[in-house]
């Protein structure tokens, strides 16, 4: 049954693919390449390569390395198209094209000139989650929101467009999604009161085609009050602005800096929106739609087909931007097209990605305590809403009150670091944070281009647990259960990779690249790279040999919160400094390490 379905879905993919961007679809289908940051449109981060197996991965060796020349946090991963590897860096967003036939000799280097004033407007380091490829061009979305299309062979600029204004706090950290004849891009700046949006540009010319905001009037958010649905019901007119008080929505956040998925058959793309601004919930009464929302939008028009707001009226900064993993699986005896999303709020959602029906919503870290769970009764007036535990409600406790012991912390049970899915095991492999927090909201005023936060946070390892700040888990998305969980000393801030060799790879903040058994989680291999890993593991084949590659370079949120170590203020003085400081394990770096089996 499974095989049959796989065949039909491939056929369907090809049929629509021919009408769409068949070039990129064909590139993504070649297992020897890594043609898109997310592995494929489904965000599965799965490779059919099986030369490296659970049996032989123990003899993996670092094969060659490359220094990027930049010392900030390195997120994302390289791409491999044909014999060329494309490596990007954090600000200043250099792109290198490396010749795999000549030990990574630099074919071309592109270094944009950006106003350094964009640096401090970027919350949480100047990371960039990588370039995209389509139709012979490399697409880079720079920190200052300039989008450039570069000739993949020469690095020459073909076109450029400007997506936002850093003077207002609009910046970029995300990759872009080339799909059909469009380039879909998001925006960062939720901590600066930006009105988040997603925008489509013409892939060949850079002309702006449509823009859909996350919050605002229907014509700005591209909602059809009658046909755009949430959990099967039309959302009605003015669904967003009715859920805000006054004009707060104009600086309402809902930024779109995460990962994007696409289903060409349904002509939909999927992504999530970030936190409402400010972090002080008392300053923005209402559900603050459509922040913290999963969106399914039409690729051609941008119109929303369905939405689902996971955390109405956020009180903890649980951005909803994490990746949407698309799968075809049997659930409750029925084959369905699924979307699985591991939210910052600590719940993993499995939905029908065609209808937007909510199928599973379960905690993927037992430490999660702000909610008792989601109301799954379609007849209930609270259908789909999480039940908030009063003790951990920063809204109910009020302004200037320190709510303590909330799990997860603002960085979420998982942040953007993407999970992987193996169709062989039907498990999802999820890098997670195991961190809790105290949160005290207070009143702040808005100034364009200035931070707009309004809360004081202290973070610390989840109490009464293994003492570490992370776990790497295997998750069954059809039942909502953890299959196995590997404790980690630090948050796992690296994107995972699953392979047909039944090996799963991930990086750690100390700098280890680890390989574990896809079925059991048994650790099979580890190697300490020069700096902490917040990049995503990828694989490719060159000259008949499978390689594993990952960027090292500590930074990002992890470089802020964990560099000095975390403390639990509730533990009293004795425990201060008792938790591991990342700076004891690793230092700044910016390096690519490529692994393969010995000859």
């Amino acid at each position, binding site marked *: 049954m499974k095989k049959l379905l796989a065949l039909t879905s491939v056929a369907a993919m090809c049929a629509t693919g021919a009408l769409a961007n068949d070039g990129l679809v064909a590139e993504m289908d070649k297992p020897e390449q890594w043609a898109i940051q997310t592995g494929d449109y489904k965000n599965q981060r799965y490779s059919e390569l099986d030369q490296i197996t659970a049996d032989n991965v123990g003899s993996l060796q670092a094969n060659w390395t490359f220094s990027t020349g930049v010392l900030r946090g390195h997120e994302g991963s390289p791409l491999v198209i044909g014999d060329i590897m494309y490596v990007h860096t954090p600000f200043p967003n250099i792109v290198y094209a490396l010749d795999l036939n000549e030990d990574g000799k630099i074919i071309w280097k592109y270094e944009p000139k950006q106003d350094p004033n964009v*640096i401090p407007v970027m919350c949480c380091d100047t990371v960039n989650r990588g370039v995209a490829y389509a139709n012979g061009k490399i697409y880079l979305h720079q920190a200052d929101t300039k989008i450039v299309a570069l000739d993949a062979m020469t690095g020459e600029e073909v076109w450029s467009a400007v997506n936002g204004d850093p003077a207002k706090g609009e910046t970029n950290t995300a990759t872009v999604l080339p799909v059909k004849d469009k380039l879909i891009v998001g925006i960062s700046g939720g901590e600066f009161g930006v009105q988040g949006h997603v925008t489509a540009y013409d892939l060949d010319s850079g002309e702006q085609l449509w823009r859909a905001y996350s919050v605002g009037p229907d014509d700005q958010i591209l909602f059809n009050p009658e046909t755009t649905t949430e959990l099967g019901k039309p959302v009605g007119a003015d669904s967003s602005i009715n859920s805000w008080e006054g004009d707060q929505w104009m600086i309402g956040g809902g930024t779109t800096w995460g990962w994007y998925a696409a289903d060409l058959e349904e002509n939909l793309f999927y992504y999530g929106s970030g936190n409402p601004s400010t972090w002080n919930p008392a300053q923005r009464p209402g559900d603050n739609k459509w922040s913290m929302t999963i969106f399914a939008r039409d690729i051609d028009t941008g119109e929303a087909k369905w939405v689902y707001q996971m955390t109405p009226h956020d009180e903890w900064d649980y951005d909803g931007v994490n990746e949407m993993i698309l799968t075809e699986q049997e659930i409750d005896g029925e084959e369905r097209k699924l979307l699985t999303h591991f939210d910052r709020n600590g719940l993993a959602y499995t939905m029908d990605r065609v209808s937007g029906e909510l199928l599973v919503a379960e905690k993927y870290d037992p430490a999660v305590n702000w909610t008792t769970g989601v109301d799954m009764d379609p007849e209930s007036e609270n259908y789909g809403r999480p039940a908030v535990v009063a003790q951990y409600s920063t809204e109910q406790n009020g302004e200037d009150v320190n709510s303590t012991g909330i799990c997860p912390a603002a960085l979420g049970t998982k942040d953007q670091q993407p999970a992987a899915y193996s169709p062989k095991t039907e498990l999802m492999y999820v890098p997670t944070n195991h961190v809790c927090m105290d949160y005290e909201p207070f009143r702040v005023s808005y100034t364009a281009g*200035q931070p707009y*936060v309004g809360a004081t946070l202290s973070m610390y390892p989840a109490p009464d647990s293994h003492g570490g700040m992370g776990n790497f888990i295997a998750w069954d998305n059809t039942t909502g259960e953890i299959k196995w969980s590997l404790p980690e000393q630090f948050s796992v801030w690296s994107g995972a990779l699953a392979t047909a060799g039944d090996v799963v790879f991930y990086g750690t903040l100390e700098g280890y690249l680890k390989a574990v058994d896809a079925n059991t989680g048994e650790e099979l291999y580890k190697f300490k790279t020069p700096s902490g890993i917040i990049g995503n593991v990828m694989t490719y084949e060159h000259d008949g040999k499978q390689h594993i590659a990952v960027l090292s370079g500590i930074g990002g949120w992890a470089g802020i919160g964990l560099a000095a170590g975390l403390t639990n203020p509730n533990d009293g003085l004795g425990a201060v400094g008792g938790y591991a400081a990342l700076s004891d394990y690793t230092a700044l770096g910016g390096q690519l390490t490529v692994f393969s089996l010995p000859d």
Partner: protein
Amino acid sequence: MQLTRTFVASTLLAALALPAMAQDADEIDNISVAYEEDGRYYTEDDIPTYNITEDGQKVDWLTYSGFRRYHSECHVCHGPEGMGSTYAPALKDSAIDMDYYDFVDVVVNGRQKINAAENSVMPAFGDNPNVMCYLDDIYVYLKARGTEAVPRGRPGGREDKTDAIREAENACLGL
């Protein structure tokens, strides 16, 4: 006002003993409290500073307030409790090493270190009321962190917010 100053200075002597001892005799004492004014504490040179009650149980309001404001405005770059991050300096040290007026200058006007090895930019917060109205709060908190007079984590007890501090805050925020 002079009366208050003398009075407070004498009652605080015991609490001052520790930081004062660390200073060289001819060096300017940028830490010790010389006088108090409506809940704000100052050094001999009229530079804002923190205060810890004699029993060590309470910090002054500004230090506590600085803890909150720091973790709202500064923490996303400079790390928890002024400890620094992978790309921004530890401000608990800057508050000790830098002259108060230089510290204020950098916060108000920003600073750039752009060269082959660094891409470090401190933004100008001069028109940000969430920072400017609490600049002394953040400064004294960081100074207290720098001397380790206040440990990591949330300060325990605190002195009450005085009417004068509240009025100045409201005036600054335009409330």
